[in-house]
């Protein structure tokens, strides 16, 4: 924990920094007056429905559209071949992921469908229902090809190569070898190993992906209404593939019904929708239905990871080694690629610990299933589950308490700056303060005693602990250096209007995290105005500064700092205007509660509306040569560290019914350190939501494919998401270690909950089952998985 001067600018009286103020945009949403893209209707708007491949792998021999074209209400039936005339294909690679390869992907498949659900033809009609009617009358002649579904088999010499021009099904491989791994294992007092298996799962945003393309041939401009996290990225990519200048494309985000990384990618069907608008010269809307969401929203975390850990009898961890394999579908996703997740696993395993002996291999494999890509806490749940699972196995091997082995090995709080075995740079973390606080918060010793008592009665409860680190505030090291036109900086423009109100335009976006709220808080605080005076505009490439958007836990840390700097700059300009009016020295003035005051005495000199009135309507009264500048813009990107790492630790308390295999979650704790907390309520709720999103795949969520590449549970009745009745109350605590990269000192908090929740739950299940000498390293932990491990079925 880093000490702060208690009298910095962030800690002024009535500070908005660190206050749980309600979000200004909630009333609209609470009254059903939000506007999501799925709610929108434009004049002459057509609805597109895609005919999707029923096969995981098939050649398209021919498409007969005649009957569909004759159906009522049909506007157009468009094949991949025709659409390719207006939309070029893309290849999802980044140059800094050396060796990553992929094949060109079209908006609509042209010759071949490579997963069940890939679009092969589009039907545009007056309503969605009519388009669905006509889609049933599109007849596609397929030649079914051998699907590649198993990731291990995909790398065998006799495997069908999905893209023959690539030579094999290996999209990417990374190897890392740090320290003296072989020596450490040879000299270890105990070695534990396991294969960790993760069920492929997906985001299930409650509002499905939604987009409207609106090409106006009169203006030669394409307006895109899209539920996206990264409007400027989309502007660039849409322009590039539709043969337009960026200036011809405007991307607008309205309210977005959940994102979690699902809505930061370039989806083929969404590109097809905007291309259809250009082709048909009218608005075209696509809203994925729930089945399409399951078969085409990116999936994630389809990993098998073998892990080993070396430990000394005194508890010192002396080596980690992993061999991770992940299957990503038939294409690397564009433009962020599908290799980042495995790359993160390599980066993050062992990250909380002092050990410097680490060997890792990751292989990323093509297969004929839906594409995978970055989803909330990218790679972290895998790395954390492997690391923390191995640490618990090591503790068990030497008979040490799980909390104690972590205390023994976590990087000391006074060791910073430091780096991990994989080379990650840590500015300031607080693992030990976090561990201590967590154990106190959960009353660890008492819980252990309760567990022991209940165990005597045959009741099996478990405690699981999981330390983690989390990537936040990414610099250009994430994507920019690899050649992607994805901004890592953000910009904020702040202006005083003539009535003393503040208008803020920011390049970060809002999908419910509270981007709008924290922008208003920070700006209001910087300016010395009540938050109610601030209106925030975001999510519009025509009307905000250029920037990255909201993803990778970056909005508050990067966009928040830009708002802080822009607000400070505007305040200086306001004071300059006031000083010239009042014939005072600007340094003696301040703004408090939207009134210019004497800094020393607090005496009110003039309200901001008076500053605005004079600057805008009576500039003639200002001194000659003085120009009021009541709009300021500032941009920010961290420069010293590629990422602002955060840390934390979670714990789960649960009961396993060893007769049924059912798990009952009793309580969950998360202690985390995201640096300066701008709005504690928003941070806590990000973490709670994230924890539950991590618990989902630990117990329930799994995209289950059969051996032919058919997704067999593509409905909300069969794909189980966490619901209210089964989720525990979650207690949150904080340690605060601000980053010195920014004046605000805020790091990201959006993914911490998801990073460690599954590991904590899995460790707790194994802790509960320890009397049976059973260790399960597979999620989801279904009743059947547990019963099988117990030998009961």
């Amino acid at each position, binding site marked *: 924990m880093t000490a702060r001067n208690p009298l910095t600018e962030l800690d002024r009286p009535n500070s908005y920094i660190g206050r749980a103020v309600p979000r200004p945009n909630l009333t609209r949403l609470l009254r059903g007056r939000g506007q999501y893209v799925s709610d929108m209707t434009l004049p002459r708007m057509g609805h597109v429905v895609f005919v999707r491949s029923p096969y995981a792998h098939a050649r398209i021999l021919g498409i007969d559209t005649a009957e569909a074209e004759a159906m009522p209400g049909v506007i157009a039936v468009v094949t991949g071949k025709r659409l390719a005339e207006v939309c070029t294909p893309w290849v999802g690679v980044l140059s800094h992921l050396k060796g990553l390869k992929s094949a060109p992907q079209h908006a609509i498949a042209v010759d071949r469908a490579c997963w069940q659900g890939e679009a092969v033809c589009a039907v545009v009609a007056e309503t969605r229902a009519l388009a669905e009617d006509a889609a049933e009358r599109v007849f596609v002649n397929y030649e079914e090809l051998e699907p590649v579904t198993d990731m291990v088999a995909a790398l065998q010499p006799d495997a069908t190569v999905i893209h023959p021009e690539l030579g094999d099904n290996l999209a990417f491989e990374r190897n890392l070898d740090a320290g003296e791994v072989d020596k450490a294992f040879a000299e270890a007092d105990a070695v534990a190993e396991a294969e960790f298996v993760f069920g492929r799962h997906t985001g299930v945003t409650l509002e499905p992906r939604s987009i409207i393309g609106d090409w106006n041939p009169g203006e030669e401009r394409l307006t895109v209404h899209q539920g996206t996290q990264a409007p400027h990225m989309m502007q660039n990519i849409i322009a590039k593939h539709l043969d337009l200048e960026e200036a011809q494309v405007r991307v607008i985000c309205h309210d977005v019904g959940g994102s979690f990384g699902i809505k930061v990618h370039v989806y083929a069907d969404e590109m097809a929708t905007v291309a259809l608008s250009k082709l048909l010269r009218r608005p075209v809307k696509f809203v994925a239905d729930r089945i399409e969401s399951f078969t085409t929203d990116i999936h994630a975390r389809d990993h098998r990871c073998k892990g080993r850990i070396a430990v000394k009898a005194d508890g010192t961890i002396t080596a980690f080694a992993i061999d991770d394999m992940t299957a990503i579908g038939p294409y690397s996703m564009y433009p962020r690629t599908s290799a980042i997740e495995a790359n993160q696993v390599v980066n993050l395993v062992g990250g909380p610990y002092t050990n410097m002996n680490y060997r890792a291999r990751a292989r990323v494999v093509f297969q004929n299933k839906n594409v995978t890509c970055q989803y909330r806490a990218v790679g972290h749940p895998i790395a954390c589950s492997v690391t923390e699972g191995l640490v618990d196995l090591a503790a068990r091997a030497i008979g040490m308490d799980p909390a104690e082995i972590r205390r023994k090995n976590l990087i000391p709080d006074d060791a910073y700056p430091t780096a991990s075995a994989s080379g990650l740079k840590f500015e300031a973390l607080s693992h030990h303060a976090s561990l201590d606080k967590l154990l106190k918060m959960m009353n660890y010793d008492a819980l252990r005693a309760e567990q022991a008592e209940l165990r005597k009665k*045959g009741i099996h409860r478990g405690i699981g602990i999981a330390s983690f680190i989390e990537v936040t505030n990414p610099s250009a090291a994430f994507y920019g250096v690899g050649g992607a036109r994805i901004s890592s900086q953000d910009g904020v423009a702040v202006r005083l209007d003539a009535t003393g109100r503040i208008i803020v335009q920011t390049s970060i976006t809002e999908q419910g995290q509270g981007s709008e709220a924290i922008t208003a808080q920070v700006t209001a605080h910087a300016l010395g105005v009540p938050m109610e005076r601030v209106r925030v505009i975001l999510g519009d490439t025509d009307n905000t500064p250029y920037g990255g958007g909201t993803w990778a836990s970056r909005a508050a840390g990067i966009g928040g700092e830009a708002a802080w700097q822009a607000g400070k700059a505007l305040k200086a300009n306001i004071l300059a205007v006031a000083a010239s009016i009042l014939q005072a020295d600007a340094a003696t003035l301040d703004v408090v509660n939207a009134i210019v005051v004497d800094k020393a005495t607090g005496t009110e000199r003039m309200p901001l509306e008076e500053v605005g009135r004079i600057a805008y309507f009576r500039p003639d009264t200002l001194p000659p040569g003085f120009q009021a500048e009541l709009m300021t813009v500032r941009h920010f990107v961290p420069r010293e560290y590629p990422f602002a790492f955060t840390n934390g630790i979670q714990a789960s308390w649960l009961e396993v019914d060893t*007769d049924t295999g059912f798990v009952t979650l009793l309580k969950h704790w998360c202690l985390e350190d995201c640096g300066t907390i701008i709005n504690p309520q928003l941070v806590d709720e990000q973490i709670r939501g994230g924890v539950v999103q991590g618990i989902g795949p630990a117990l329930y969520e799994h995209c289950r494919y059969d051996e032919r590449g058919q997704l*067999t549970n593509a409905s909300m*009745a069969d794909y189980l998401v966490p619901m209210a*009745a089964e989720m525990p109350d979650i207690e949150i605590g904080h340690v605060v270690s601000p980053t010195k990269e920014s004046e605000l000192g805020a790091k990201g908090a959006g993914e911490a909950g998801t990073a460690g929740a599954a590991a904590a739950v899995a460790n707790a299940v194994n802790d509960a089952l320890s009397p049976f000498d059973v260790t399960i390293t597979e999620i989801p932990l*279904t*009743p*059947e998985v547990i019963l099988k491990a117990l030998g009961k*079925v």
Partner: protein
Amino acid sequence: MKASAFDYARPASVREALELLGRHGDAAKLIAGGQSLVPALNLRLLAPEILIDLGGLADLRGITVEGATVRIGAMTRHADLLGSPVIAEKLPLVAAAMPHIAHPAIRNRGTIGGNLAHADPASELPAVMQAIDAVIVVRDASGERRIAARDFFTGIYETALRDGEMIVAVEAPVAAKDERIFFHEFSRRSGDYAIVGLAARATGSGNALADLRLAYFSVGDKATLAERAAAVLGAGPVDATRLAAAQAALAEDLSPQDDQQASGSTRLHLSRVVLARAIAVLTGDASLAGRATA
């Protein structure tokens, strides 16, 4: 995800409904609460030419007691059953099952007749009806027919209903004074379909169980009475040995299937676990449950 087009009729009487059903035959689907049918329509798993809406048949809705029989109209909703003091008193096993059926918004629309006609093998009510020895009253243009619940369910989504017939009511004997009941289902999440469920009732005292009925659901292609297991348990005072024999007999009574949630062997295991828990409750002998309680 929009339904295929269909026509719509809303008869004002059972006679009119049956007349429409007779006229349209297989091209028609009856819609009661629609809570299973409408998802199937939206998903285009079903594409009838015409829907015959029973929503206007007020005389099919309601609960009455006639002597020792409770009669429940086919259009009586789950919410009506859940809130009914008559059901709570006269058919406690039905009352015990109701909170497990889906969620409040579904229970406000779903009906007992629609549920039984749908014959989902994972649904609660087909099992409960067998446990309480209910009779399904069905009608066609020529008159009424009464089918014992145990004969009504014939397979996955299949019933003994003939072309042109519809359910008009369910009749069940009022529970005996000394009736003991048990209802439990193992479902992953509240309101989900069960992996395994059991509706059981018996009379008698202590470890002697009379008239034991064990109605399982989600363990085969239809809700099923475990008659062999019940016979074992009814042959004498229940102890751990007898219970174990009954658990073994479930292998013959049930033919659980593999699906998304569990394999057949897991289901059989869980059927045995829930049997022990049921018998512990029915006999009042907690030691038979085979597990600890906090």
